[in-house]
């Protein structure tokens, strides 16, 4: 099926998210879409998949104009979209998850569904048991499930919006293989991502967006510097790997044991020096999150000791950790980090130590204007946080952190952010290190872990490795360890 988008316009209030976008994709093509945060990529994908309607413009499928008003219209026309957070039903069985929204008689035939699922899986080498529950799958497997479901419903166009953020390296390989196979069968694949190497390796052509407009399209061979310049309108060079002189030990973790109903960590030991960056690597759910939350005081360890500059914090409530100078920036920005419905200014007010009872609005607005400038947030003091793009939400979270800080704990600090924002965020974090803050962070991006950490802890199924020197470790070594190969603890 050939897909054409013609003169698409879409505005949200004053934001022109899609400004006269025209793009044409032939059957069998993997189309890459690149662009900075807020460039309008997701907006265009949502228009094509029926989530939102364009203000004007046409969608042509095989040359015929179609109206797509809802996501179910889209799938009826053969357009399926894979969202970054899998849209499925976690507490249900895989078969039931497949059946919801599938047309047919009152009583579905589960056995037949299982059978066709197995047949589809065989084509791509997936291995999901139809009788297991969705919430027992990894993010990567849920993605596979959703692809299978869309194919089963007859999708001929597959849209993937940042599909590689939450999945392991081997799952990514498998995903790319699958996408290539589907393209060979004549499907259209649209692939949105911030990871240049992914897009370059996979796509037959790349369209670059900037501030709502289509800047241009390129075909292989790709030139990375050229792509970056198209995305940001300027050349951006990767920052130098810097290593600060560490000073005295700050956080001492001794024999820490953590337990919840999923994972057990026994006797973890680590001493973090001030100004040091520790990266936590591992497959999702290997215990690194529990470890970080225990350091934050959000989870009570079952044994062991936590000391910050000699002061014992074990068993103290969360606010004692905060008062001691520990801050935690969670991955789920909208659920734990920010409060939907409140403006940027109101967030700053909440994060400050308040002396008076009443809010000094004017002063608050002035301060938030200042911070919006220094942190380069694309938004106004009155903008509600949920209307900010992902990168800007992350900037807002960092802008809210108190100074001085002793220990900063971050989960996926740059997930979903474009290169420029990532580099910028890390420059801010490194500035904190210069002021003797130590940083412990989780990331699924191995390059990020290697590039920014001084030392690395690898987690595998609740086991914790000895600290590795980041400078002496390669991506391959790290990948092996994460997969549990050669793991000693």
């Amino acid at each position, binding site marked *: 099926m050939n897909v054409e988008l013609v003169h698409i316009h879409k505005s949200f209030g004053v934001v022109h998210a899609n400004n006269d976008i025209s793009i044409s994709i032939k059957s069998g093509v993997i189309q890459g879409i690149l662009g900075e945060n807020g460039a309008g990529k997701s907006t265009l994908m949502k228009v094509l998949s029926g989530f939102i309607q364009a203000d004007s413009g046409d969608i042509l499928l095989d040359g015929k104009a179609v109206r797509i008003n809802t996501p179910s219209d889209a799938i009826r026309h053969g357009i399926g979209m894979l969202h970054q957070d899998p849209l*499925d*039903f*976690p*507490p249900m069985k895989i078969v039931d998850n497949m*059946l*919801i*929204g599938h047309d047919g008689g*009152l009583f*579905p035939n589960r056995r037949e569904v299982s059978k066709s699922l197995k047949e589809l899986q065989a084509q791509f080498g997936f291995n999901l048991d139809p009788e297991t529950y969705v919430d027992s799958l990894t993010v990567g497997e849920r993605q596979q499930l959703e692809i299978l479901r869309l194919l089963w419903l007859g999708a001929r166009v597959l849209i993937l919006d940042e599909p590689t953020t939450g999945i392991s390296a081997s799952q990514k390989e498998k995903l790319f293989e699958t996408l290539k196979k589907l393209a060979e069968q004549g499907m259209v694949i649209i692939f949105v991502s911030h990871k240049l190497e992914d897009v370059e390796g996979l796509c037959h052509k790349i369209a670059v967006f900037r501030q709502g407009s289509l800047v241009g399209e390129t075909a292989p061979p790709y030139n990375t510097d050229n792509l970056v310049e198209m995305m940001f309108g300027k050349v951006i060079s990767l920052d130098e790997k810097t290593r600060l002189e560490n000073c005295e030990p700050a956080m001492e973790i001794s024999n820490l044991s953590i337990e919840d109903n999923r994972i057990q960590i026994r006797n973890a030991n680590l001493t973090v020096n001030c100004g040091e960056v520790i990266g936590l690597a591992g497959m999702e759910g290997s215990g690194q999150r529990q470890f970080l939350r225990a350091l934050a005081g959000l989870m009570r360890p079952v044994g062991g000791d936590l000391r910050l500059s000699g002061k014992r914090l074990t068993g103290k409530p969360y606010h004692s950790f905060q008062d001691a100078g520990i801050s935690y920036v969670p991955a789920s920005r909208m659920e734990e980090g920010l409060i939907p419905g409140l403006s940027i200014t109101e967030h700053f007010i909440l994060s400050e130590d308040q002396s008076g009872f009443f809010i000094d609005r004017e002063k608050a607005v002035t301060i938030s204007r200042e911070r919006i400038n220094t942190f380069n947030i694309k938004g106004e003091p009155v903008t509600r946080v949920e209307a900010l793009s992902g990168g800007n939400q992350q900037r807002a979270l960092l802008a809210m952190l108190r100074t001085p800080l002793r220990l900063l704990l971050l989960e996926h600090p740059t997930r979903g952010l474009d290169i420029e924002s990532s580099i910028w965020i890390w420059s801010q974090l490194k500035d904190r290190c210069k002021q003797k803050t130590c940083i412990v962070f989780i990331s699924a991006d191995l390059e990020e872990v290697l590039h920014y950490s001084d030392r690395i802890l690898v987690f595998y199924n609740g086991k914790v490795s000895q600290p590795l020197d980041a400078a002496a470790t390669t991506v391959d070594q790290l990948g092996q360890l994460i997969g549990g190969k050669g793991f000693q603890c």
Partner: protein
Amino acid sequence: MDNNTLVGLAGILASAAPVVFAAIGETITERAGITNLSINGLILLTAMAGFATSVTTGSLLLGFLVGALIGAFVSLIVAFSSIALKQSQVAVGFVLALMSRDLSYFLGNPYMGLSGPRVPSLPIPVLADIPVVGVLFFRQDILVYSSYILIAVAYIFVFKTRPGLMLQGIGEQPATAYVRGANVNRLRYIYTIIGGALVGLAGPMYSLSVKVGWKGTITGLDGIGWIALAITIFGGWNPLRAAFGAYLFVLLQWLGLVLQPSLPNIPSQVLQVAPFPLMILTLLLVNLGNSEWVDRTLAGLPEEVRRLIAKVLRAMRTTPPAALGIPFENE
């Protein structure tokens, strides 16, 4: 088993029928993501209205019809205020619960103590003559038979049919259900109304069969609705388990009555009221596994014992539909 016990047990099945209707009605509503807190008052109001209708018209059928209609209407108010007006389901439901109760006492005054029609018993030929089973299950009235059918139909609908899966979907992940083609809010209206109508049948089931008549504040129905809400949780939003909870509750009530003569030291009020706290206690027990301190206490036990206890706790505990009580807006 002697005949008295058998008749007693058959009586439990009969008195549990309205509780079954109320708990399954609420289960269906909550599966769709809406909490209908009004059902305690609703049962009183429909008991009174159903009785009054049947006394006035002489028609049992009309009594039940009025009950279902009132149930549907009051639930429509809950649905409308939460879906269209985005108001708190708890606040609106609670106010409606109190209002319906007071309304039933006030409007029911003229019908206090009147004698009215009663749903006749309807033994099923052949089946009724089977020893034990016949007495237990098949010498009941049509309402009790309906309660068996309701349990089966509700269970099959929720777990075995396509619309039932979508019902689970809209209560679990409405955004996903929307992408899969559901008109989430319309379905929520429909299921709240259906659930409310089922609860609305529970009232007349009391006043026209289980506890015939209307006696105002001493009718003894106040509190049943709250228990039905607890049973919904106990039942893990599963019609089968909810029915089991209903039977358990009525069994406790019956035990209270039976044991009364042999426990003269305990005031009779205590035995009458006991089933309510006992039911809540069971609810707490069932969900013990959700609490963090249990996890931590268990951590000290030997590995095998802990595994076993954790497994039992996990099998018992129930988790509500993820989107229960949360309004849905598609962007």
